[in-house]
């Protein structure tokens, strides 16, 4: 059953003095309840735009987005969006704990104390126990991104929309975050849509990978990874199926991505 559906979603941006540029051409996609789906595409193909439309943060020019069957016109309560630039979405004047509490403290019937307790629970889930009183800018990049994940989890979403959240950290930290993300996804029964340009990341984490073309972007194809669950985000990279998928998707990206001479 689809929990998130995109139906013939189009996006065009006003052109400078000319006709509008079409960024996205009739994209349809049904994200199944509980799956981990990656949207893979070359840089500048509008992956983030697509995710923001899915999150209700940006209206499409045409087409419909549905979450749990309801058309999306504003950010739906079931979904949270996690930003690529953790440093820009965390609030530097708030402590780590209060940043996480921000996700729920505005809800009716939630006291400041309850919001902070909920924050501590989520900080523990991302292995940041004891860092609640720090400020985001006192933490490393990987830790800041974990704060952003904890904040997203605090909202108790059904769907997490991840906009290249692992791209701004070093390779080792990235693997660490991959493991954490898989663990959270398995434990909480989340539906995850991850936008990335990293083929290995997409294959290692996902059930399905949707491959986007360059602008105007459409879905070129959707690949079922068929990799076993539960899986380890590092060990899975040594399986023949992983290597096969990596090869196939890289090929497709390099020929479609406009990198060819």
């Amino acid at each position, binding site marked *: 059953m689809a929990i998130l559906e995109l139906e013939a979603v189009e996006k065009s941006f006003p052109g400078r003095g000319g006709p509008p540029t079409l960024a996205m051409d009739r994209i349809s996609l049904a994200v199944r309840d509980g799956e981990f789906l990656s949207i893979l595409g070359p840089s500048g193909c509008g992956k983030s735009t697509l995710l923001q439309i899915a999150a209700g*943060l940006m209206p499409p020019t045409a087409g419909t987005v549905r979450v749990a069957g309801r058309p999306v016109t504003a*950010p739906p309560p079931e979904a*949270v969006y996690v*930003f690529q630039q953790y440093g820009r979405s965390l609030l530097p004047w708030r402590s780590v704990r209060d940043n996480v509490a*921000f996700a*729920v403290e*505005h809800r009716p019937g939630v006291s400041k104390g309850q919001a902070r307790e909920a924050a501590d629970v989520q900080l523990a889930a991302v292995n940041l126990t004891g860092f609640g009183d720090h400020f985001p800018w006192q933490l490393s990049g990987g830790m800041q991104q974990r704060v952003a994940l904890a904040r997203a989890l605090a909202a108790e979403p059904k769907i997490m929309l991840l906009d290249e959240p692992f791209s701004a950290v070093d390779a080792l930290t990235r693997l660490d975050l991959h493991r954490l993300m898989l663990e959270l996804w398995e434990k909480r029964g989340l539906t995850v849509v991850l936008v990335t340009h990293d083929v290995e990341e997409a294959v290692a984490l996902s059930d399905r990978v949707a491959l986007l073309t360059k602008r105007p972007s459409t879905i070129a194809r959707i690949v079922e990874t068929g990799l076993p669950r539960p899986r380890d985000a590092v060990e899975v990279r040594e399986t023949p199926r992983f290597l096969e998928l990596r090869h196939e998707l890289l090929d497709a990206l390099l020929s479609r991505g406009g990198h060819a001479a």
Partner: protein
Amino acid sequence: MAGGTVAAPRGFRPTSGLLLVLGLFLLWEASARTGMVDSPNWPPLSRVLVALVRDTASGEIPMLVGSTLARMFAGLAAGTIAGIAVGLLFGASTMAQRVLGPTVELIRPIPIPAVIPPLVLFLGLDNGMKITVAAVSAFFPLLTNTAQGLRAVEADQIAMARTFGVPAWRRLFRVTLPAILPYVMAGLRVALALALVTTVVAEMIAGEQGVGHYLVLMQFAGRAEEMYAAVLVLALLGYALNRGFLWVERRSIAWYFATGRDG
């Protein structure tokens, strides 16, 4: 705790600027006593200090300073609130900016003291006029900086609040306003200095209130010691206000300095 004080350790070194200040004070004293400058309008510093201590002890100067400060802060508060409000309006509505922008740009360059005479005609010589003068002085720096701060707010922070379903009014108070606070503080610092100047000028021009009036009165009366005492009081006042402001600023936006966003 994070932030903390950033003040550099201050030792008293021979190159310290304080020595020059002391030297100038000594030169003042010497020039008046030795007849280098021989004028009833140039009393030695020691006699000025005597007048200062005497009028401070009598309560006259504290009362004058208090009344000047009360007017200045009342105007500063009104001008600050109005400046932030109009700045937010400009940020929220391009239409407001289009309609009001040219008017603001035409009024802004007018030297504030130039509006005192017309204001006297409408508001009289007393508090209303002087508070208005201070408010107008504070309005423009706050307006400019609020608008500038709004352009610098991270779009991701607003979008983040939206994805969690935070309502618009709460986004304003919990995200936008804290985010622009460093810009507001920078505007406030300019406004504070300006408001002190314009309040004193307004007191000098009109009415019988405050340190500004006292200064002019002593000049007319030929009482040079008291006149210079008033000048010293204003120097100290300006210095103390700025130091006090920096103290508040370091504490209210410690994150801004710690993240190095000030440069």
